[in-house]
């Protein structure tokens, strides 16, 4: 019995000696070239990621610009068609600039996208316009105008606003859809209305 224990101890000791010897000998010179190749791969990954991020931001900017230009034109053209409005000098209230009330928004919850399960350290939200048909792919039904505060059906855009969560790696993680509610139309003084006509 003691012989067996002695043999076990001797084998363990011999294996420890082998492990220590292997550790001492572990100076893999050939691995410097391996490390060099791997570093180049990491740099390539970083460059590809930065390019992807730039593309995403560029795309988002382009979409935003595409949505902003028509909106700006609409905003500029509106006052021109109705002519300049001169506030009555007798009304102090009407003379004050009419501040545009803040737009209200209704949003959906954030809906996960294909890469939602990929861990990410940081992310940013990019607002963009997407085709209205995108709602259907998330099982959402495009809302119809139902109140006086919302745009008329004719004015319903072919696109909807979406907030997209883009991770630091350039992959989109989630999206939510935004519905802008038009502010209530302020009461216009009767005198002012008559003057424009």
């Amino acid at each position, binding site marked *: 019995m003691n012989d067996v224990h002695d043999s076990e101890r001797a084998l363990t000791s011999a294996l420890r000696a082998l492990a220590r010897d292997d550790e001492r000998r572990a100076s893999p010179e050939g691995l410097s070239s*391996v490390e060099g190749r791997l570093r180049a791969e990491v740099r390539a990954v970083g460059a590809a990621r930065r390019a992807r991020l730039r593309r995403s931001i560029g795309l988002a900017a382009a979409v935003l610009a595409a949505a902003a230009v028509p909106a700006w034109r609409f905003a500029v053209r509106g006052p021109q068609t109705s002519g300049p409005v001169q506030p009555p000098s007798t009304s102090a209230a009407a003379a004050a600039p009419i501040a545009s009330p803040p737009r209200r928004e209704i949003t959906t919850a954030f809906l996960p996208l294909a890469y939602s399960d990929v861990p990410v350290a940081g992310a940013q939200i990019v607002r963009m316009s997407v085709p209205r048909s995108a709602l259907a792919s998330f099982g959402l039904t495009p809302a119809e105008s139902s109140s006086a505060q919302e745009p008329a059906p004719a004015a319903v855009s072919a696109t909807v606003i979406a907030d997209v969560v883009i991770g630091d790696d350039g992959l989109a993680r989630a999206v939510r859809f935004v519905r802008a509610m038009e502010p209530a139309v302020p009461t216009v003084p009767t005198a002012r209305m008559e003057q424009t006509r």
Partner: protein
Amino acid sequence: MKAMTSGAGDDARLVRRMRRGDEAAFATLFAAHHAAIHRYALQMCGLAAADDVVQEVFLALLRQSHRYDPARGAVLTYLYGIARHHVLKRLPASGVESALDDDDHRTAVPATALDDLSRGETVDRVRQAVQSLPPAYREVVVLCELHEMDYETAASILECPIGTVRSRLHRARRLLMTKLAAVQRALVGESRG
């Protein structure tokens, strides 16, 4: 196995940074773990393939790092798992499960056969004996004895129950002692002849 348990959270952060193309994070991970992976590959399939295995392991970590789940274990455990996958591809077609049905090696082994080895004079003989083990036994000896890994970690790398690791290690040690005793007998026979 200190490297496997200490700084696991740091390693996970380094992996995330590496995925974003942070070369310094990669260099830190490589410096911390490449030696263990290289040694494992060397002990399992020889020097010729060891460098390639290291390269494949870190490439996999870089390209498929989203597969790494910190909740399931340390980065080094994950790297061992990838390394094992690549090592098995390089082993002969007989596969890792070969020779598991060998005779039960319960032959008495003279302690003197190992006395010399324990003095560190014949480490090469132990190395040769380990390398001559069937792969299924060799990998438990390499992980549990040479890399001083606990059974649970070894089982997660080998994708088998802990009991299997225990029984394979037991049989592997019996095999080793038998092989070393045979070498000792041969040497004694030579010296007498």
